């Protein structure tokens, strides 16, 4: 070993020892070969515990039944009984502690998941009643007419007589007369310009012949259908501005401060706002 030839080897051995010392401190103690052998079982056992500790978000409808018995009883046996509550309302998590309320998604997209008619032979999809979303009241929420918990046709929100007459005409029909509503100055503006007039005012049918006037719904509930901001909300309404209905001027109609046709905040009548508590 006196020969200088071995010096590089000594350097290398020194480096290897350093590496092994570092390894002793760096690699967790529970890392090793466990069941399933070296090929499939080299791991840190703590990782299994890490995965077991993930919080459970979806509780299952049995846990909803305890408080929401009325909904359960109203839900007729078939067909929506097969759908878990949380499929539409999102995971309940620690509800009612957190989140306090689960979102109510009224978008068409939710219903169209199953109820776009697709005539697919050999698939159970063909057996589900459905519509063509491009022709069946486009732009309107399904829940305007259909009750999600009692979806059968006999439970439509209108009597069968009314049902025969439901006619949503679409905003082009409104524009024939209500021109001022559509102009840039005082008409209805972004982002409510995307909402069909009849979503809030009801179906036009043969207006102005019948009905002579359409309803003007000023209740909070109409606005809060979209503009409730709830933690954990993951519906299509994500991205919409919203308020906590409990804290934001409870009992006061939204239209007292907000113009439903021109809802942008900078158009708010601030003189009216100051007279109320802000949340």
């Amino acid at each position: 070993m006196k020969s200088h030839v071995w010096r590089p080897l000594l350097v290398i051995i020194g480096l290897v020892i350093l590496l092994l010392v570092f390894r002793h401190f760096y690699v967790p103690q529970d890392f090793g070969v466990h069941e399933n052998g070296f090929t499939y079982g080299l791991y840190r056992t703590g990782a299994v515990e890490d995965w077991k500790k993930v919080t459970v978000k979806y509780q299952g409808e049995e846990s909803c039944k305890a408080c929401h018995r009325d909904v359960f009883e109203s839900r007729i046996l078939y067909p929506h009984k097969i759908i878990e509550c949380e499929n539409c309302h999102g995971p309940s998590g620690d509800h009612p502690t957190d989140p306090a309320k689960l979102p109510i998604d009224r978008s068409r997209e939710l219903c169209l998941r199953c109820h776009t008619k697709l005539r697919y032979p050999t698939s159970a999809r063909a057996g589900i009643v459905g519509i063509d979303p491009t022709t069946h009241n486009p732009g309107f929420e399904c829940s305007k007419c259909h009750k999600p918990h009692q979806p059968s046709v006999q439970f439509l929100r209108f009597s069968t007589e009314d049902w025969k007459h439901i006619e949503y005409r679409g905003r082009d029909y409104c524009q024939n007369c209500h021109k001022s509503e559509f102009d840039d100055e005082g008409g209805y503006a972004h982002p409510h310009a995307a909402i069909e007039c009849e979503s809030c005012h009801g179906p036009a049918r043969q207006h102005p012949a019948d009905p002579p006037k359409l309803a003007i719904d000023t209740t909070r509930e109409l606005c809060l259908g979209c503009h409730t901001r709830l933690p954990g909300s993951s519906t299509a309404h994500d991205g919409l501005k919203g308020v906590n209905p409990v804290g934001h001027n409870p009992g006061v109609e939204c239209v007292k401060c907000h113009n439903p046709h021109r809802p942008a905040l900078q158009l708010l009548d601030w003189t009216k706002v100051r007279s109320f508590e802000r949340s």
Partner: protein
Amino acid sequence: MIPGELWTLKDLFVLPNEYIYWSIQIVMYPFMTGLVAGSFVLSSLYHVFGIKQLKGIASFALVLCFALLPAAMLPLVLHLQGPFRGINVLMTPHFTSAIAAFGIVFSTYFAIVASELWFLYRKHFVEESLFLKKKPHKTLTERLLYVIFTVLTLGSFDITQQARHKDEKAIKVLATVGIPVALFLHGYAGFIFGSVKANALWMTPLMPVIFIMSAVVSGIAFCMLTYIVTMEIRKFLLFLARREQPQTHALERREDIKSVEIGVIKMTSRYLLFFLVFAISLELLDLIFRGYTGIASWDVLSSVLFGKDFTKIFVLQYGLGNLVPLILFLIPGLTIRRTIVGVTLVLLGVFMMRWNVVIGGQAFSLTLAGYMEYLLPVIPHSWETFKEGVTGALTVLVVPLVLFYFYAKIFPVFPSSESS
């Protein structure tokens, strides 16, 4: 955004989780390790097989190899989603994975090259150390160099004939042992791809061999190119010096340099040709077998090979990268200029081979009914587009050259060099 989504364009039926995850840096890695393996083999051809004409390029190749090694690790570090956890490969290597071999092979190879360089330049370290020790007033650079050279002697100042003889033997042993290790260093990269049964293009036992052959080709070509460029720079510097001080020696030196070049180049190009032919034969063999057996994946594979990637494969890689250099080197009366064109095209061909394997293998979906297009980021606008784009690839190419420049100050690469 899913990593990979930024530069992937899906077409037709592609699974939701499929993206081009292995991008330009994974193309660069086998390219760089190929240069490493090739330059080492070139250096060993002199040290092991005693091919005298390669003496001039042998040291050059070894130092270049040493400069390429850290640069070869760079693409991996840049690619990893968790680069700081990269050492886990050394800490808990799962040897059923080809990538786990990286840690051991790379370290072993590093040790071999470093040791061989030490034996090769030991005499120079000792001489420089003693010379600088005697010097009374050292500049800052000289003081730094003194420390470096003294440390590099590893405490041994024996440069007698006997000691030098032992050095020669050690070099021979290391150069011999290093050849299979160098081949393994690149062969395992081929194994990484060839063993993935999920990928219809990669899965073939020929992959490790194809990779090794093209690695040797690229290494030799790269050494030749850098050698020529360096010699031309030296000639030019000598020309400038001669203009300022028209002394006699300068003129002779220039002629000397020129003749050494041609001999080395001619010898090296023969080896280049041999490996080039071998590499292209294997690739054509693989293609022919796939077409002949025509398993389920052949439909989508042929539409990629003969359709979307036709230019990249047949024009760039096989045509410009293989056929044209073959012709250029076979024509008698080889000139330096023709060599430069030839080796550059060879390097292009090898690069395209890596590209066509890595990116080509991700050009079609697992469904065999869809495609993915790779949009290489050019102008970086974020860290991700920098490291996984053209800029990242250029960084990887430039780093070894920068390292080589500094290494050449400590490991002089030319036989009768004047110390700077």
